[in-house]
């Protein structure tokens, strides 16, 4: 890792600048986090109409709390906790019924047990997938299927895979922001990835059997 340069502001520098009215500093923070916040809020609130409101409310709460930010965690994880709390409060208020699938999380298996024989060997092995990420993502239907698979995940699996794989957060950042142990985070990520793979399998492998 390269040594810190004089050009890269610390969290404390950024907070100071934003409190002093530096719109560029705040704009940079928004640019870095808006897409991620939107996805996270969408993962919790589920209703698209409410998502934007929740994110706006979170930014306001962040500004209002900024003077009291002590730097005990990174600015990013501190902000995300505010967003997650707002989103969860809102989701409860919207009184959405929790779907059955949301109740599970770390218990399900990555691959259906039926795919293995009694000795644990493949009985119904995965059929080969062809295509590169570029060629596959050019297919809008497939992109829609990936998004649907993410939507179908239990909340905690969805949050972890969105932050880790789509937004590129480190495992440490995600653990801190969502208050998860390393094991818990690893298992949630694994389950999420396995479920998404299983959801794509029937479309990418013509010879494959079900999940």
């Amino acid at each position: 890792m390269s040594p810190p340069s004089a050009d890269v502001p610390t969290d404390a520098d950024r907070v100071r600048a934003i409190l002093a009215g530096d719109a560029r500093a705040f704009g940079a923070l928004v640019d870095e986090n808006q897409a991620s916040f939107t996805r996270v809020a969408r993962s919790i609130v589920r209703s698209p109409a409410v998502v934007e409101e929740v994110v706006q409310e979170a930014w306001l709460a962040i500004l209002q709390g900024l003077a009291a930010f002590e730097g005990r965690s990174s600015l990013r994880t501190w902000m995300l906790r505010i967003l997650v709390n707002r989103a969860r409060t809102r989701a409860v208020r919207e009184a959405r019924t929790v779907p059955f699938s949301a109740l599970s999380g770390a218990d399900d298996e990555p691959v259906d047990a039926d795919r293995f024989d009694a000795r644990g060997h493949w009985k119904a092995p995965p059929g080969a997938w062809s295509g590169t990420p570029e060629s596959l993502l050019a297919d809008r239907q497939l992109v829609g299927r990936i998004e649907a698979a993410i939507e179908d995940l239990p909340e905690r699996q969805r949050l972890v895979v969105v932050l880790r794989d789509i937004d590129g957060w480190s495992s440490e950042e995600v653990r801190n922001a969502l208050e998860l142990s390393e094991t818990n985070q690893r298992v949630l990520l694994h389950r999420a990835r396995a479920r998404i793979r299983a959801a794509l399998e029937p479309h990418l492998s013509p010879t494959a059997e079900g999940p």
Partner: protein
Amino acid sequence: MKTCRELTEHASDLVDADPTGPEWREIREHLGVCGPCVEYVRQMGLTVELLRSLPGPDADAAREKVMELYAAWLAGR
């Protein structure tokens, strides 16, 4: 040596980490002789690559509103 079923439990780790250390030996052995597991791990890797390359939500309109929020907040302090 690990069974296929056991190996699928590690597929996610294999996407994130390089399996060169001694703790990966059993897994490497299994992958050396099991085509279906190699394919499964490859598919996990491809799934993650697809996730990493997904087009993002349009953040521009929302950004404007957030910047307005900032201006209002500064003015109201």
